[in-house]
């Protein structure tokens, strides 16, 4: 198929899809409407289990099994990246020579690094209370670590980031999630049911039963996953080159 015919096929299909989408939009409930049956029930369930952040309650309590699925996708994606981006036999490692970084950039990066890392951990820890949680906090903490690449250099980053440890951490966090689920099963109810721990006092750090535990497991998993992913990509982009005399 030539580019021209392909464009025409695309435009025809796109126009049909656009017409259907617009027709569907016109029949959807109006934006900002007052009827949210699922939302109201989720809020009610979350409040009976003393979880102040309803979104965390949905993620780690009411739909915890769904989050297990999401976590599995994440784990599989990281595993795929590690396999695809490994160093092959016809490649060699070259030490990257340090490049000059402007002093203000360097100073700013080193200043922001601890603040960003701490914010990430705070966001994970307070997931059941305020906006945030394992997913967001994990990403913040892991990307914060990479400010070291800007502030110092690649060798310093490699010293604080033994990739193997983070790979183990990723696997441990995944198993921690499943183990918490199985604990619910042994406790006499169902897989991932939030009946194991007391619900605690509303709006304190230890409220919400198993929500903080699952939240922490996800935070660790996401942080480790992002570190491993970025490490693999940095390796490929900065260090690994092809054997030239092939």
């Amino acid at each position, binding site marked *: 198929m030539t580019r021209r015919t392909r464009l025409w096929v695309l435009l025809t299909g*796109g126009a049909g899809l656009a017409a259907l989408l617009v027709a569907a939009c016109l029949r959807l409930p109006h934006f900002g409407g007052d009827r949210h049956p699922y939302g109201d029930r989720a809020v009610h369930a979350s409040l009976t289990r003393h979880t102040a952040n*309803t979104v965390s309650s*949905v993620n780690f309590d009411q739909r915890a099994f769904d989050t297990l699925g999401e976590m599995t996708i994440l784990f599989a994606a990281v595993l795929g*990246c590690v396999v695809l981006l490994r160093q*092959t036999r016809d490649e060699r490692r070259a030490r990257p020579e340090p490049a000059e970084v402007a002093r203000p950039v360097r100073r700013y990066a080193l200043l922001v690094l601890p603040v960003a890392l701490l914010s990430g951990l705070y966001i994970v820890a307070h997931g059941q209370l305020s906006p945030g949680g394992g997913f967001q906090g994990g990403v913040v903490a892991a990307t914060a670590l990479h400010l070291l690449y800007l502030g110092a250099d690649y060798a310093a980053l490699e010293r604080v980031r033994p990739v193997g440890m983070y790979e183990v951490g990723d696997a441990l966090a995944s198993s921690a999630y499943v183990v918490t689920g199985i604990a619910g099963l042994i406790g006499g109810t169902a897989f991932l049911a939030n009946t194991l721990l007391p619900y605690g006092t509303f709006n304190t750090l230890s409220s919400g039963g198993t929500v903080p535990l699952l939240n922490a497991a996800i935070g660790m998993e*996401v942080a480790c996953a992002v570190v491993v992913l970025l490490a693999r*990509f940095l390796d490929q982009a900065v260090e690994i080159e092809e054997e030239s005399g092939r």
Partner: protein
Amino acid sequence: MRSVMDVLPYLVAAWVFLAGCYGLATSRNLIHAVGCLSVCQAGTYVLLLAVGYRNKATAPVFSDIKPGSRPVVDPVVQALTLTDIVVGATVTALLLALVVQIAKRHGTVDPDELSELRG
């Protein structure tokens, strides 16, 4: 104004999704295609959150408001979107790893040249 406001968010979501699809199909560079795919994903996020919005409501977080004192927006769609954003990013990484691998094996990231190589 009111009637436009009723459907505008859905239309924007549809526009973003279709724009992403167009870029995906006409792309001449696989890395650009992966970027377009993330634009498509953004369209679905806008749609989900637009469905869950409620006028004059606040965020579904009760750490600083009394439960029941104010209406809140739908937390279920927010939870769906939130997990997908992070998981979507790792899937993007997997796709990029595939692109890097293709570049290594075939020496090009243009989908047209790749299909010529095969045929």
